[in-house]
């Protein structure tokens, strides 16, 4: 599309207990913002149906440039994948106002 600019969208689905830590992490690693939604789900750590504290999950999405995307995914892979329920994926999207997400 003519009015959009290529950008990476990093999505992390993980335990709610990590929300504060992850928010600090991604900002420190170069993101300019993030968006979080409450979700529930199932994966290799079993059912996380979100009815009580220990069971709740979040879905965080971060728009950023490629190098920040690599930094963030590498960091969460090294830090959280081993001990926490977590899934991460990256998509190619086109953003408006690209200057908000780069650098």
């Amino acid at each position: 599309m003519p009015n959009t600019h290529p950008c990476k969208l990093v999505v992390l689905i993980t335990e709610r207990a990590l929300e504060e830590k992850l928010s600090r992490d991604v900002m420190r690693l170069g993101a300019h913002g993030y968006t979080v939604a409450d979700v529930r789900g199932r994966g290799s750590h079993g059912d996380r149906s979100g009815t009580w504290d220990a069971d709740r999950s979040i879905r965080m999405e971060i728009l950023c440039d490629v190098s920040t995307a690599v930094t963030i995914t590498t960091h969460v892979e090294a830090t959280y994948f081993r001990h926490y329920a977590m899934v991460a994926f990256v998509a190619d999207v086109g953003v408006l106002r690209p200057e908000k997400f780069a650098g």
Partner: protein
Amino acid sequence: MDAIALFFVLGFLARLARSDLKLPAQLYEALSIYLLLAIGLKGGMELARQDPLAVLPQASAVIVLGILIPLIAFPILYKLGRFDRFNAAAIAGHYGSVSVVTFAVAVDYLIARDIPYEAYLPLFLVLLEMPGIAVGVLLARLGGNMREVRWGSLLHEIFLGKSMVLLAGGLLIGWAAGPDGLKPLQPFFFDLFKGALCLFLLEMGLVAAGQAGALRSSGLFLAGFALGMPVVSALLGIVLGAAIGLSAGGTLLLATLAASASYIAAPAAMRIAVPEANPGLSITAALVITFPFNLLLGIPLYHRLVSLIHGG
């Protein structure tokens, strides 16, 4: 059976029967905020009625109890149960801490039977919430690189975790406002308490049954531990209660606090401080076994044991 316990049973059976009954997540949160505040306020109000300094020696003894319990639980889990250091320590920490709802049910047990108790007991609840968790984290890191423990953030997590803030905050407000200041809050925070507790127990029944599947994978040893440890802790609590001169009612509450295992504050703190531990194990033990055990059998049993000492 008491109406309160029946709500737990209703939730448990509904989930086992695969009913789609579910309490909204934010209702669960709202109820737990309410219960913590209400217990704190009530304790603080009673504290305002007496000299806080007089409670100091008892309070110190109670903290020692909170440190002792995980130190007993850890070797049992680590040596006998062959859990790894992290899991043994995390589970021990859960049992060192306390369950607010179990405490509330025990208070209700006393009220229904007209048994008096020292009204400042909620203070002990507040005091027992933290030390067990801290000892659990320490045990997990011992031998490992102790410098890895992020003490700052651990202390923060423990003292500023939401259950601590609400309990201790309620206690302070109750203490500052005193019985007269709290009177207009009575209908909301005190009269509704038992009903709100019923709803919360309905939800705990649903959650416990939902976790029950994990029982199979967690092994028989853990089940045995989750039944035996509360009794051991309750005995310690009874001995201590007698030693510091609590009434029969107060001793029963202290025993129940000792016997109970945390499933709100401890899981949250452990998840951050000891990520290597599998949270499924602690929660299965604390919530699926120990919690209903205390609710249905433990409290009456500890009452019997207390009666052996106090007569009655």
